């Protein structure tokens, strides 16, 4: 060890830096910086990519001090349950301070990837102005900006390669943001604006596509009709990833025939999505490219009949990632199982969110997939019912799951055959899938399932619990057993103070804990906050007159409706709104 260290120290820093360049994972680089002071220093100045899983765990100043030469930043803001309206609007997660600080410090930012953050037009404008080499902006599930902000990006980022907007709530001002890409812009490789609701200038888009010869990924929005798609495909047959906009037309029309021919020429398309409005009879136009598809997302396509779906899928023998709606039905999943032998990730979303129709998939579909697709390792499955027997079979068939998320539409539905809780089924999953890192459970569940999870889920990093368990024991099993747990989110479950306070140090090994509609009281949260200064314990009230009023009403013995705690290096945040109180 000593000899090794002195030998390594003999190498000039450039060599160390070069060696470190080969380390791509954040974890590896973090480990390396802990070895010794000189490695820390070299790593610090050579680190280009930084990942911050919780934007409130650090602050911009510390980031810049720690990694002054950073070029690429990933930031995540709101807790996951914000996706489901459990976090009030205006909770936080603003990106502006980060952009402002990096601009001031002349960081040479090239890439920014944000998830669940509030992005104002102001921040986009500042971003566009401040970083001359900016290349890539990826916004996932963000909000707060309008197409005016996008116009600023388009106008000013001369070397922009990637503008990828995934599932954001954007206020579409129907401006001409797309037309703001100057004629000199030819660098685009990836452009995704599928989530925008408004019109875009089709002619401007066609010209943009024509001059960006390196364009590989293009995802259109709903407002663009098939005619435009056809013209674009003629200009860009080199695309790897295509998101159609609207996909509906008279299949006998000349436009449609032209489209079919254009599609045939697109030999490089490996990923297909969109169909935001679709006439099932138009789907055959894409059959020629199905054979080479590795990813297919039809989950935003309303109203495709199951038989049309299955006809399409029969062409897709190489699919590795498939996102669909439950309208495919168990039978349709059977077709997937027989056809898609390379399938790794499957997501089946519910189609009927407002009506009272019958959801179309059950445990049968899941079992069929598990039997037919040996490479399956990631699943998100919304279903009407489930059984332990099915889960046990799935566990046997697929020991390679790394992500397993099951969502029964009725959150506490028991085993459909035996009326028992689904403990045994999930138990089988965690016991069999030794590499499981993410798990969401649902259905009727007792403390027993958590005993199994604590016992077997050794690699588990993220666990989502809803309407489950009987007592504090359930939560304790998890906290004590899952050594690698990073994120725990719990709603509507009978876990209380005893579980919360039993191992307070545990939370410093985790990114965050969310508990809503559970049994924890204000007093216990206060105790936790007091004992653990490196945690922020936030009490989130519904926006009723602010936390001040709520405080006056809340007694230490009262249950807390929503608690979100996370480790942090920088103490209570300064931007918390009224209804958030950091204890």
């Amino acid at each position, binding site marked *: 060890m000593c000899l090794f260290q002195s030998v390594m120290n003999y190498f000039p820093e450039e060599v160390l830096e070069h060696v470190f360049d080969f380390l791509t994972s954040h974890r590896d680089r973090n480990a390396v910086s802990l070895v010794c002071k000189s490695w820390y220093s070299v790593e610090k100045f050579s680190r280009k990519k930084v990942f911050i899983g919780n934007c409130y765990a650090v602050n911009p100043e510390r980031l810049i001090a720690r990694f002054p030469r950073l070029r690429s930043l990933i930031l995540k803001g709101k807790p996951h*349950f914000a*996706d*489901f*309206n*459990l976090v009030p609007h205006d909770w936080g997660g603003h990106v502006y301070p980060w952009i402002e600080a990096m601009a001031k410090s002349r960081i040479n930012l090239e890439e920014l990837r944000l998830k669940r953050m509030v992005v104002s037009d102001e921040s986009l404008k500042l971003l566009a102005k401040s970083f001359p080499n900016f290349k890539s902006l990826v916004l996932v*599930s963000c909000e707060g900006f309008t197409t005016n902000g996008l116009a600023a990006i388009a106008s000013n980022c001369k070397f922009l390669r990637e503008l990828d907007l995934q*599932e*954001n*709530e954007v206020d579409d001002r129907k401006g001409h943001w797309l037309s703001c890409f100057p004629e000199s812009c030819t660098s685009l490789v990836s452009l995704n604006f599928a*989530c925008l609701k408004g019109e875009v200038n089709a002619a401007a888009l066609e010209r943009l596509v024509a001059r960006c010869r390196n364009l590989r990924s293009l995802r259109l929005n709903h407002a663009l009709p098939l005619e435009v798609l056809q013209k674009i495909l003629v200009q860009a047959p080199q695309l790897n990833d295509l998101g159609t906009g609207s996909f*509906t*037309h*008279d*299949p*006998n*029309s000349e436009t449609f025939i032209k489209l079919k021919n254009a599609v045939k020429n697109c030999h490089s398309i490996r990923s297909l999505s969109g169909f*935001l*409005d679709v*006439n099932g*009879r138009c789907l055959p136009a894409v059959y020629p490219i199905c054979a080479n598809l590795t990813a297919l997302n039809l*989950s*935003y396509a*309303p*109203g495709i009949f199951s038989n049309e779906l299955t006809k399409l899928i029969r062409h897709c023998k190489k699919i590795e990632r498939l996102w669909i709606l439950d309208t495919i039905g168990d039978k349709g999943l059977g077709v997937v199982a027989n056809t898609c032998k390379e399938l790794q990730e499957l997501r089946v*979303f*519910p*189609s009927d*969110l*407002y*009506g*009272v129709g019958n959801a179309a998939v059950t445990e049968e579909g899941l079992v069929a997939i598990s039997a037919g697709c040996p490479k399956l390792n990631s699943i998100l499955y*919304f279903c*009407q*019912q489930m059984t332990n027997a099915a889960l046990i079979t799935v566990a046997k068939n697929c020991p390679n799951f790394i992500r397993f998320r099951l*969502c029964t*539409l*009725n*959150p*506490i*539905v*028991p085993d*459909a*055959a*035996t*009326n028992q*809780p689904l403990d045994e089924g999930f138990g089988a999953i965690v016991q069999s899938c030794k590499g499981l890192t993410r798990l*969401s459970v649902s259905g*009727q569940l*007792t403390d027993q399932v958590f005993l199994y999870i604590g016992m077997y889920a050794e690699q588990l990093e993220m666990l*989502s619990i*809803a*309407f489950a368990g*009987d*007592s504090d024991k359930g939560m304790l099993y998890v906290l004590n057993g899952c050594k690698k747990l990073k994120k725990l989110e719990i*709603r*509507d479950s*009978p876990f209380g103070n005893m579980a919360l306070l039993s191992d307070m140090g545990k939370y410093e090994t985790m990114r965050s804990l969310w508990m809503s*509609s559970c*049994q924890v009281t204000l007093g216990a949260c206060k105790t936790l906050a007091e004992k653990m200064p490196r945690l922020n314990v936030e009490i989130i009230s519904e926006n009723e007159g602010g936390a001040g009023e709520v405080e006056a009403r809340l007694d230490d013995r009262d249950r807390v*409706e929503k608690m979100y705690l996370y480790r942090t290096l920088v103490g209570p945040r300064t931007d918390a709104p009224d209804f958030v109180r950091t204890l």
Partner: protein
Amino acid sequence: MPADLNLRLGLPGSDQSDKSNKRSSPETAEDTASNGVPAAKSADDHETAPAPKAQIVGWPPVKSYRKSTAKKAETESGMYVKVSMDGAPYLRKIDIKLYNGYSHLLTALEDMFKLSIGEYSEREGYKGSEYAPAYEDKDGDLMLVGDVPWEMFMSSCKRLRIMRGADARGLGCAQ
């Protein structure tokens, strides 16, 4: 009614039901406790008319973006009209919005009813066909399909009727 699915905060009860293969349906908001947890559930619920979707906030856990997109698609979609065919015992219903023009619609009708409709001409309607498509417009008048621009047809068509060719002569603008 057995309370076998009664969600409580204590230890699991010993109530058992020997019902098999029953599905619970979610309760309405009135039945939930203040924290949104569904109260007593009955395995019988699905025998009666389907219960309205539960008002549990955030369940099923679908991203609000996805929900709002689906809602938009639902409210925008659907121009369903009844289609009757002379002599057929029951009617069908189709969503005109799914079609992009007359030829598309007529092909679909031919498929659906296993018949042939033939060529439209302004002068002679569907002369020579065994069947001719007609529709009832906003004013209640019976009109021949194909005379007005497609968009106008979509907004004025209330009902479709596939008539025998012989009966259809006399409809149409010119004749």
